[in-house]
């Protein structure tokens, strides 16, 4: 055989490469072995020493047995804000729109005691009510990317919650005096809630008529004298603003009060770790029921409003009209994460109120009953000086003299009182709202 080059050394397929189909005979193709979208098998957490159920222990930072004290560290890789972000590929979006595929509840067989359990469809973990064993990975997503890949582990031990809740209940003067003593908040449900995080860059091009104030002198023919007045000169302007929005959080659960959830934020995504079933052992975790596309629409509408605010801030005058803008989204990416929240509820005068505690920071928020008599009394007290002043001023005005001055002062006092009263009323309504 005639050859024009030196013989080559024998070749071996490198490790972690596997053969893939070749479309050309005579050429073999090897690609890196893909980390397969392994269907994570359900894991049952049992103590290897005593056989009792084990659960994730916040203080120990790992899975622990309450009976014999056995502990193992949960070695989830800390990824923080560097946690991988995914793109909105057409494939992913199509799969995300399919959601979880089934609705309602699913049947589960307990490996430990053999009991049959009916589990809520969105649950990712469960504690068997018969043998108390903890199971994780109950669901398999339609797409590997749509399973939880990152989470923030609980940092606040459940024991702290009662004290925090007690202090929170006692705070505030317009709640019933007995609230702190009579309400009992002792059952806190630690749950990992689903969240979508979105990151994108918006290039916003705006165009508007911007008005600039100018003082001009004019001759008033009625009073026959020169006066000054402010006029606005309008001119068309345009500009470009670049807005980078990172890790915008949108809840993936439709059953949790967004209002209360908003009040216990922010979460520090710098604490994100790679998903490990260990973190969920003995804790509840829910999969999303708001699909990616729906959450992105919500996130996008919030983000473009941010871009609009940035455009307004770019305009050098407060007088703006005929404002238009184009928000060009780029480099959009998302993550699906689980964040720790304690849920609790308490009864007061036969009414149930919700409370949430941020499982990472300990921030607390929730519904609180309002002692409305205190609110109305305060509002009456706020409005009274103005009303009384007015009542006194009117006869004085009719009689001539000082009436006009006191009437103006009364109106001002009434206005201030009304503003405070409205603010207080809103705060009170907000306190009871879910």
């Amino acid at each position, binding site marked *: 055989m005639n050859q*024009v080059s030196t013989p080559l050394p024998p070749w071996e397929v490198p490790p972690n490469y596997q053969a*893939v189909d070749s479309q050309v005979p005579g*050429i073999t193709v090897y690609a890196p072995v893909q980390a397969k979208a392994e269907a994570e098998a359900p894991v049952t957490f049992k103590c290897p020493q005593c056989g009792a159920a084990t659960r994730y222990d916040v203080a120990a930072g790992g899975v622990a047995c309450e009976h014999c004290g056995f502990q193992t560290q949960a070695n989830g890789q800390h990824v923080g804000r560097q946690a991988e972000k995914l793109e909105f590929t057409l494939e992913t979006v199509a799969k995300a729109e399919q959601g979880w595929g089934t609705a309602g509840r699913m049947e589960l067989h307990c490996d430990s005691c053999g009991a049959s359990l009916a589990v809520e469809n969105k649950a990712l973990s469960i504690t068997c009510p018969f043998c108390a064993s903890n199971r994780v990975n109950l669901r398999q997503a339609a797409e590997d990317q749509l399973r939880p890949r990152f989470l923030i582990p609980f940092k606040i031990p459940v024991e702290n919650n009662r004290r925090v809740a007690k202090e929170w209940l006692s705070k505030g003067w317009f709640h019933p005096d007995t609230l702190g003593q009579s309400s009992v908040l002792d059952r806190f449900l630690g749950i990992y809630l689903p969240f979508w995080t979105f990151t994108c860059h918006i290039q916003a091009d705006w165009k508007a008529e911007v008005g600039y104030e100018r003082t001009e002198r004019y001759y008033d023919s009625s009073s026959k004298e020169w006066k000054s007045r402010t006029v606005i000169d309008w001119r068309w302007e345009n500009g470009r603003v670049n807005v980078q929005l990172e890790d915008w959080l949108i809840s993936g659960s439709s059953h949790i009060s967004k209002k209360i959830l908003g009040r216990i934020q922010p979460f520090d995504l710098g604490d994100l770790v790679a998903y490990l079933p260990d973190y969920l052992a003995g804790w509840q975790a829910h999969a999303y029921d708001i699909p990616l596309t729906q959450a992105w629409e919500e996130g996008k509408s919030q983000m473009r409003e941010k871009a609009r605010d940035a455009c307004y801030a770019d305009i050098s005058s407060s007088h703006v009209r005929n404002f238009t803008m*184009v928000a060009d989204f780029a480099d959009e990416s998302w993550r699906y994460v689980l964040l720790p929240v304690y849920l609790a509820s308490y009864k007061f005068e036969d009414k149930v109120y919700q409370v949430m505690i941020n499982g990472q920071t300990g921030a607390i928020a929730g519904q609180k009953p309002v002692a409305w008599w205190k609110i109305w009394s305060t509002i009456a007290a706020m409005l009274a000086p103005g009303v009384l002043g007015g009542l006194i001023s009117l006869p004085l005005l009719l009689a001539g003299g000082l009436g006009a001055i006191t009437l103006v002062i009364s109106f001002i006092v009434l206005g201030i009182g009304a503003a405070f009263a409205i603010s207080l009323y809103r705060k009170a309504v907000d306190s009871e709202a879910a």
Partner: protein
Amino acid sequence: MSTPSISSTDSTILDEVQSAWGLELQPTGCRTCRQAFLIDPAQLGQPCPNCAQGVLESQPVRLRTEPPELLLPFQRQVSSLAPAVEKFVKEVWLRPADFTAPNLLKRARPLWQPMWLVDSTLSGTWQAESGFDYQVKSSQDYYSGGSWQSREVIETRVRWEPRLGQIQRRYHNIAAPAASDHAAREKILGSYALEQARAYDAALLGSSIIRVPDEPPESAWPAARAALDEKAGQECSQAGGAQHTRSLKLQVEYLDPHWTLLLLPMYASYYLDDEGRRRPVWIHGQTGQINGVRVASQSAGWKWAAVLGGIGLVLLILSLILGAVGVALLPLAPIAVLLAVLAFLFGIAAIVPAVWPWQWNQRHKPKS
């Protein structure tokens, strides 16, 4: 790495009219450009089709005994080239008297340019980054009149992944230059549609001139190897189903190389400039693209300048006479002024043809 060569058994020396490649061929050469040609014996003493400066004289030529494997047939006949040649000529305003379309067409001779065709088996390994297209959903939102409108935008992006493997493929007829000026000629005339090549047929050559390769396979091998690698790279990319490839690395042996010739069609013609020197013009045999150095005629420029300058001078003399008469006969004075202005304009216009040929020739000087 060694390079291929043609063994002496593959070639023969032609030193007189001899039957080769199915034709009676006269080996010739040009003393000026030192290129060798095979011609019909009747064409001996004709101007060189390559440089047009020298003439074709009998000289021994080393020739592959195996006839060319393929040729690209002429797709343009000389008669069909008249409009393009006419345009090519008329772009020069003041041209030499000999530089005419009929002259160029009359002197156009079919010339076959050689190119090597290499067959070789590539055996070894490859490694590359393969690019796969995928689409992402994005959006553009418009705010106007207090409300938002959203428009979906689909963007195509490339995902790069490493790929590697083995290759054991034989490639046929990979073209490599056989003439030292191939790249320069291709640059001015354009490339050839090699896929239209057909099996060599001596009958198609007739009394054409065949240029003998001046690049032996040893010199053409780097270009041939690059072409082989490129072809192999494309197939490696295709094998993995990728749409893009980058950072391709081939570690291969080139086995069983086989060299043959491909003949490319062109016409060679020439014209005479002011000094009577022959200037070559070439025409692509497939596309009809024409190229060659077009010189402007300085003597024609001087002639035009003299005519215009002469008219200006006559007008000046007339204006001076009328001016002198105008002193006595006042109505003639304006005519004298008008004639003086015209004389001035003709004088200025006479500069243009004097300068234009020089400017044109400077601009179109052949790059050495």
